[in-house]
């Protein structure tokens, strides 16, 4: 009885820590949706590209922190690129073509990654110590702790920048009322581009903290977009704290159901959560209009 409970608790903690990475990816949705009313349905692929970029930089013998920063820069550039190529035009024409376009950019990213880095999964080196820490019989590995610290750290930094820099306040103004922001001399397009760059940066960073746990491969992000999407829909638009809670809950449930029902059921909670959320609160992430069209 007691050992079984301990095993479950172990699963929940491991899953919950991974869930904080889902929350970080979902945070990227929140950022671009607030500023520009669109999200990147290829966000998971940005996570994967970020992880590969980090891996390539560290194979080039750069120190860990330099590789991670490089990956974040690549992610920021990719986020900016997705907005410029796939989103801006569709939104200007007031249609939802960006949904399809961002999915296509994501698919393209997967095949590009297969061509550049190959299909097989690779380990992601980290400077963290081997072994695990024990708390009350539950063991936590260093890479898992790094996920928690990294996700919390990045989200806190971005939130602070939004509140305490003029650029951040301007981005909030564009989210609140784009026309009024323009009347204040704020270039709303630049503010939206900035949000996409930050969103891409957090996705790539998520890649570098997930990869040490899951390994790096072109399909590592296959279900990540969906999971992050579920988290974002459940937590809604305004609260990054809500994202963390929803992410932790999803990660934990996922792991537990994989453990109890067999690994084939791991993905089930995310889907069920998404269906329930869309059914019970259709205003969720997107407002009614777009849900109808998807």
């Amino acid at each position, binding site marked *: 009885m007691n050992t079984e409970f301990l095993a479950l608790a172990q699963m929940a903690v491991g899953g919950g820590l991974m869930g904080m990475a889902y929350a970080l990816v979902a945070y990227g949705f929140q950022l671009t949706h607030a500023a520009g009313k669109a999200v990147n349905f290829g966000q998971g692929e940005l996570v994967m590209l970020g992880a590969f970029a980090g891996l390539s930089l560290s194979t080039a013998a750069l120190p860990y922190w330099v590789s991670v920063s490089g990956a974040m820069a690549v992610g920021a550039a990719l986020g900016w690129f997705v907005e410029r190529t796939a989103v801006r035009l569709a939104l200007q024409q007031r249609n939802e073509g960006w949904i399809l376009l961002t999915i296509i950019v994501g698919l393209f990213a997967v095949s590009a990654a297969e061509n550049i880095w190959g299909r097989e999964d690779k380990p992601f080196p980290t400077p963290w110590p081997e072994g695990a820490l024990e708390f009350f019989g539950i063991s936590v590995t260093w890479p898992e702790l790094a996920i928690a610290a990294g996700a919390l750290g990045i989200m806190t930094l971005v939130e602070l920048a939004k509140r305490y820099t003029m650029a951040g306040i301007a981005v909030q103004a564009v989210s609140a*009322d784009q026309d009024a922001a323009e009347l204040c*001399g704020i*270039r709303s397009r630049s503010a939206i581009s900035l949000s996409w760059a930050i969103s891409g940066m957090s996705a790539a960073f998520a890649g570098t903290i997930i990869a040490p746990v899951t390994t790096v491969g072109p399909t590592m992000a296959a279900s990540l977009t969906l999971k992050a999407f579920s988290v974002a829909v459940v937590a809604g638009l305004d609260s990054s704290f809500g994202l963390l809670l929803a992410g932790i809950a999803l990660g934990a449930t996922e792991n537990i159901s994989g453990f109890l029902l067999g690994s084939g059921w791991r993905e089930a909670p995310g889907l069920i959560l998404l269906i329930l959320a869309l059914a019970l609160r259709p205003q969720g992430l997107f407002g009614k209009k777009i849900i109808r069209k998807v």
Partner: protein
Amino acid sequence: MLKVENLCAGYSGDDAVRGISIEVAEGSCVALVGANGAGKSTLVKSLCGLIVPRRGSVFFCGENISALPASEVARRGISLCPEGRHVFVPLSVEENLLLGAYPRLPSFGRFRRAASGDLQHLYEMFPRLGERRSQQAGSLSGGEQQMLAIGRVLMARPRLVVLDEPSMGLAPMLVKEVFKAISSLRTAGMTILLSEQFANSALAVSDRAYIIERGSVVLEGASAALAKNPAVMAAYLG
């Protein structure tokens, strides 16, 4: 200072503004008077770059600004206080005011210090905003929000202030207060373009006025003369 020539603008259907020409001289206060749906807001929005004019041009200090986006028009010195206030509801009063000065504040540096002089001046002018500086703008009353919207415009240190129906939805007491603020701006030498439904207060505060009906100017002249015109007063008595 501002010269609008034969401007046509509208939304999905017909033109809502049909060939309007107006002029605002530096240091003057000009009123646009017209009933609901006459096209005042459409005119004002298209000269500020919020909607792209279909025909005609807008010159500001000699430069053609008709094709510029609103943010660039704002940076050249035209500040619109839009109809319905449009304060940034989730942000604080002070953040709203700081955003008014956005183009000249450092994006990452000490922006509060850079704006402290202007803020202090503004809080002296509108003490109520000073008392509520850290309150959410959405929690202000309608009149306070109008003061905030005007304050945000002044923070831009504009060369031309455009006020679109600043009295809309306000109790008579507050309307009086808003017009007091406008006339004190005028005495301070600010150039003002004011759009209003109600003729008498608009004509009392302005030097010149244009009467607008269904997208066209039907009458123009010195405000004092228009105020004595019985046809105007019968049609637009406020």
